[in-house]
């Protein structure tokens, strides 16, 4: 177990290192001149030179990378090229937005996905199974941004026309400020994220349950005279939930790094939004912080998933 954790953490650090190098290389290969971009169109060559000197952009790439690692070692992610704000404080508020979005949606899609998946698997080839399978494939095929637009149109705009302003179309209210408004503002983003994801979970749960329901221990449980509910939820679902857990961990890990599309459609000031902004303006310290943070979430999620897997399923041994 310890060796496993050490190995996985080393691998995780390797991944993060590769990613920071890749971002640096990409940034300096790019034909953009950031100093020029910051100094403005009318800037004299002297101003541009001054800007690039102030930001350390005139130093060799290796030195700049070293400076980045050095700062990182001191817990400092650097300062935005544009606002000169520390990157850490720039991201701090946005992590809460992305986390609210990701975790809320995750709860919804897990509830919908697993319950419909179990329903479909326990009545294979019945009408509910067939309609659920068809419906989930429909949502599964729908790109997130398309569903986002549809949700916005139907649940915000059409309702608004009908004189019902149930959900706002954009904006964010912190949980600490007003929990009810927080939920109201996040309801539509949650829904559009959760519906596409739930479809995948319905399919996943159904497939896993169908596999498990054919196994001997389920037959034994039924033969012991346990109720149908106990067999399905107490025995079969517990074994079938492991692949679902894996996918769940990975999906949440990815989403914590910012739901770029959903944040854009619903105007949420999360990590995904600032990521796109900083990529467009070539704000290197911010880009590298976000990409590394997002990758760290994925790496961490993978690790947690493996450990949880071993806990849930005693047959799994961590090498």
């Amino acid at each position: 177990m310890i060796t496993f954790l050490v190995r996985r953490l080393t691998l995780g650090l390797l991944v993060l290192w590769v990613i920071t190098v890749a971002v640096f290389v990409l940034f300096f290969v790019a034909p953009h001149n950031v100093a020029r971009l910051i100094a403005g169109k009318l800037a004299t060559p002297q101003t541009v030179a001054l800007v690039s000197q102030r930001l350390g952009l005139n130093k060799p790439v290796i030195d700049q990378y070293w400076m980045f690692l050095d700062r990182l070692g001191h817990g400092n992610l650097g300062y935005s090229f544009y606002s000169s704000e520390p990157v850490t404080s720039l991201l701090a508020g946005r992590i809460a937005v992305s986390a609210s979005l990701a975790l809320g949606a995750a709860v919804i899609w897990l509830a919908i996905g697993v319950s419909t998946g179990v329903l479909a698997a326990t009545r294979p080839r019945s009408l509910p199974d067939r309609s659920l399978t068809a419906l989930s494939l429909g949502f599964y095929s729908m790109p997130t941004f398309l569903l986002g637009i549809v949700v916005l149109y139907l649940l915000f705009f059409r309702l608004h026309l009908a004189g019902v302003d149930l959900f706002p179309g954009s904006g964010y209210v912190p949980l600490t400020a007003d929990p009810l408004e927080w939920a109201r503002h996040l309801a539509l983003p949650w829904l559009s994220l959760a519906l596409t994801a739930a479809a995948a979970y319905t399919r996943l749960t159904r497939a896993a349950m169908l596999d498990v329901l054919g196994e001997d221990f389920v037959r034994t449980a039924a033969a012991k005279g346990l109720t149908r509910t106990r067999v399905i939820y107490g025995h079969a679902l517990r074994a079938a939930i492991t692949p679902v857990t894996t996918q769940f961990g990975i999906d949440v890990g990815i989403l914590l790094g910012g739901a770029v599309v959903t944040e854009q459609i619903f105007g949420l000031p999360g990590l995904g939004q600032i990521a796109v902004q900083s990529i467009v303006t070539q704000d290197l310290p911010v880009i590298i912080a976000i990409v590394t943070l997002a990758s760290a979430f994925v790496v961490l999620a993978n690790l947690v998933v493996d450990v949880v897997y071993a806990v849930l399923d005693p047959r799994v041994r961590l090498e």
Partner: protein
Amino acid sequence: MTMTMPVGTAAELGGAEAVRARTPLALAFERIRHDRMALACSIFIVLTTVAAIAAPLIAHLVGHGPDTQYLGTGLTPQGLPRPPTATFLFGTDDLGRDLLVRVVYGARISLLVGVTSSLSAMTIGVAVGVLAGYFRGITDAVLGRCIDVVLSLPFLLAAISLETVVGPSLLISILVIAFFSWAAVARIVRGQTLSIREKEFIEAARSIGTSDLRIIRVDVLPNLAAPVIVYTTLLIPASIAFEATLSYLGLGVVPPTPDWGNMLAEATGYYQVAWWFILFPGLALLAITLAFNLLGDSIRDALDPRGDSLLVALRRRR
């Protein structure tokens, strides 16, 4: 071989036809042929492909160019898009262009990017997966780490960075999508290869001195056909959705080239006044991805009537 089985009458067997031995692939094909859903999806995909190839012909028949702005007839006096009429069957967009023609042209990009990037991802994924699974040891360690790194990348952010740096274009979109898709294929193929290489027929081949290359070509690859075919069919809709998402974010195909993703991005600003502007590109996108997904499901059922196991390995992209 003329061996008849004593089952049923000659009439039931369709005349005096001999019973033939059929390969698993032939059997699978037979199953797909009798699957009405698969047939419907295939027909839809073929029709869409034909329409995409014949897009200039359709534009000629309709009499509207894909990028031509019909400022007089295509816009309302207020300068807003026009709803569907006899002249503009799907209505017009914000610049007074014919949506029908643009949706048809959009199919070209979607299918081109979807199919080419999936095929490239499949080729790379199979190559890497087979090498890692067959040779194991240091090869597997190195290739396995590469797979892990690519799978840990926040792919949408990384794709956006790449596209911004290199500048958006069709080729870059294909490369980016292929780059972020091959690792999942490689992981599946590697797992399959690991189990295939332990089979007796591989041992037999090795014992008579067959070279590694020949074993891979003759014994390993054909046994990978089923999962690879299924996975590629399911990768195409994912790639199409990925491409549309990139274009929606303004990073794929550059306007004015018609593309479902960038049409939907333009339409987002008009969703309160022009429902058709969202409906038709959105419907086209949904229909083609749904058709490929349904077809992929049917192929999977036909190749492996028992299992949904491959689906479990499929990673959702967002």
